[in-house]
């Protein structure tokens, strides 16, 4: 087991595409780290540089305390599960699992012991004699995972391993991977563009955009305190409601928030950090779950009156899509209890929990500090 440290890593592909800029990240020993970001933001490139499949243009990569920039992938003692699995198409499942160990000259009895144990854990032992082409997507994915597991490496790198699975299987494999990490305690770097995976699986999330790291932190921390509008809009489904508006000084350290028909005052003890921004355009972030139908549900609620556009009944809850009205009308999505119903055009009186408000500078997109 080992930590992985990236120091100011850059990657420019030979064709001139600059895929990763100045990425610095400390992945602790035994940590489950998520690399999250939209497609094309450089997640795979970062992972492949850690694996040694892609050269590092500049910067330092450390595994444990050793600089491994120029170390052959075979010597890094790291296993990778590729997005497309990359199984050996001509080998049976059994050979796929044992190939890496054979190459390393592991004793045959030890090989069969490890392969048996891993295969039983993943439920793929009945498939030993099949070729990859005779497996379903989920089975291939488990074989690819098994091939990494039998190696018992210092760290696992997983490149969107669940993206090709159907929803049920994906949910099941998420749980499996979490359990696996708990029992092995090995460092895992898991790449995904799926925010649900990121929130549920990671001990820490590293959010990337256009080849740069935007924010690193524990899932709830990133969720509650996004550093900018990109992170705010990317995490969670439905995403945070981002409304254009501006701040006004309301005296005594309190500030007034204005956006279309929405107007409310944030008391001074919640708005210390915002008051310096009074008079400037801002983006207001309201999470969909911080709205209530009654005003007694949270400590500092303010009324928000909206007009229903449509409702999405999900079973466990209802998503209300509503318009804020006024000349800067915007659509917001609000989580409502499962028995909530509203017909289009109906006025709905909502109450927002002020303590959860996020305010972002419109010019820099960065969050304004609350205190």
């Amino acid at each position, binding site marked *: 087991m080992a930590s992985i440290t990236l120091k100011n890593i850059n990657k420019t592909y030979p064709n001139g595409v600059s895929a990763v800029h100045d990425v610095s990240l400390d992945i602790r020993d035994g940590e489950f780290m998520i690399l999250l970001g939209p497609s094309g933001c450089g997640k795979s490139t970062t992972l492949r540089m850690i694996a040694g499949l892609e050269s590092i243009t500049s910067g330092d990569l450390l595994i444990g305390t050793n600089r491994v920039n120029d170390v052959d992938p075979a010597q890094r003692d790291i296993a990778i599960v590729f997005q497309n699995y*990359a199984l050996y*198409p001509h080998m049976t499942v059994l050979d796929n699992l044992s190939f890496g160990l054979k190459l390393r000259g592991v004793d045959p009895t030890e090989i069969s012991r490890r392969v048996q144990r891993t295969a039983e854990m993943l439920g793929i032992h009945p498939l030993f004699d099949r070729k990859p082409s005779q497996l379903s997507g989920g089975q291939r994915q488990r074989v690819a995972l098994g091939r990494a597991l039998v190696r018992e490496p210092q760290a696992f790198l997983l490149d969107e391993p669940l993206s090709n699975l159907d929803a049920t299987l994906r949910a099941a494999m998420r749980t499996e991977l979490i359990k696996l990490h708990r029992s092995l305690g090995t460092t895992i770097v898991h790449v995904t563009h799926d925010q649900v995976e990121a929130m549920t699986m990671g001990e820490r999330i590293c959010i990337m955009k256009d080849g740069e790291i935007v924010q690193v932190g524990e899932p709830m921390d990133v969720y509650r305190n996004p550093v900018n509008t990109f992170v705010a809009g990317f995490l969670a489904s439905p995403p945070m409601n981002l409304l254009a508006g501006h701040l006004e000084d309301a005296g005594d350290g309190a500030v007034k928030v204005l956006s279309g028909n929405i107007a409310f005052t944030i008391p001074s003890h919640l708005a210390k950090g915002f008051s310096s921004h009074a008079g400037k355009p801002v983006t207001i972030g309201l999470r969909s779950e911080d709205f209530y139908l009654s005003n007694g549900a949270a400590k500092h609620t303010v009324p928000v009156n909206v007009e229903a556009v449509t409702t999405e009944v999900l079973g466990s809850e209802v998503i209300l899509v509503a318009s804020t009205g006024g000349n800067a009308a915007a659509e917001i999505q609000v989580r409502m209890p499962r028995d909530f119903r509203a017909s289009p055009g109906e006025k709905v009186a909502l109450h927002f929990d002020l303590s959860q408000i996020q305010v972002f500078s419109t010019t820099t997109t960065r969050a304004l500090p609350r205190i």
Partner: protein
Amino acid sequence: MNQLVTIESADRRFGWFMSAPTLALLLAVILFPVFWALFTSVHDYTLIAPDFDTFTGLQNYFSALRNSEFRHSLGLTAFFVFVVVLIEFVIGFGVALMLNSVNRFKPIYYGILLCPLLMNPVIVGLIWRMFLHPSLGIVNYLLSVVSIEPVNWLGSTNVAIWTIVMVDIWHQVSFMIVLLLAGLSALPKEPYEAARVDGASTFKAFRHITLPLMWPVIIVTLLIRLIFAGRPGDLDRPCQLFHLSEGVRQPSCR
């Protein structure tokens, strides 16, 4: 379900319809001559009396096999085919592997490689006969520059067969290269990356991934080359051999 079956059979009928002209042509120019030849071979058929009056069974075959010159030629042909295909395969696979990792100017290399293949066999024979001429040829001249005795490339009984092997390799090796290169460039890239992380050296990756994945292509390539190199009555080789060995008038490689 029923409709699917109908569509499928319609597809099949259309397929047959489209291939019918080609099939008919193949039947006429391949299957018919083959059966004609087989049929003729079991009759006493001469150009003076071209008829099928006398059935002789395997008589013709026995008399051919009793002829020591025929046996010699047969042995030489077998030897020639085996050696040529083997060497061409080794060289071809090696060059294909090297070219497969080249990214720049690939079309140019392809162009150069295809040149010999495009050349008429008769011309190939004539060119090499001039190159290999015992006293006027450039090959012996170049050898003399580095003080090596001139070689009687086409006249000597020991050397002639190897000369012809060499010329055939020169002429046909690009065929192997092109076919094997096509196979190599169609191989998936991902297993190689997986193998690198799994700890495979370049040689191990070749041995455990490239070779097994290439088997189907290798077999087809070898089969095609074996058929072409060993085909009796091949237009290509006898002409070439004839032009190479004409004027030498020695039965060294007939």
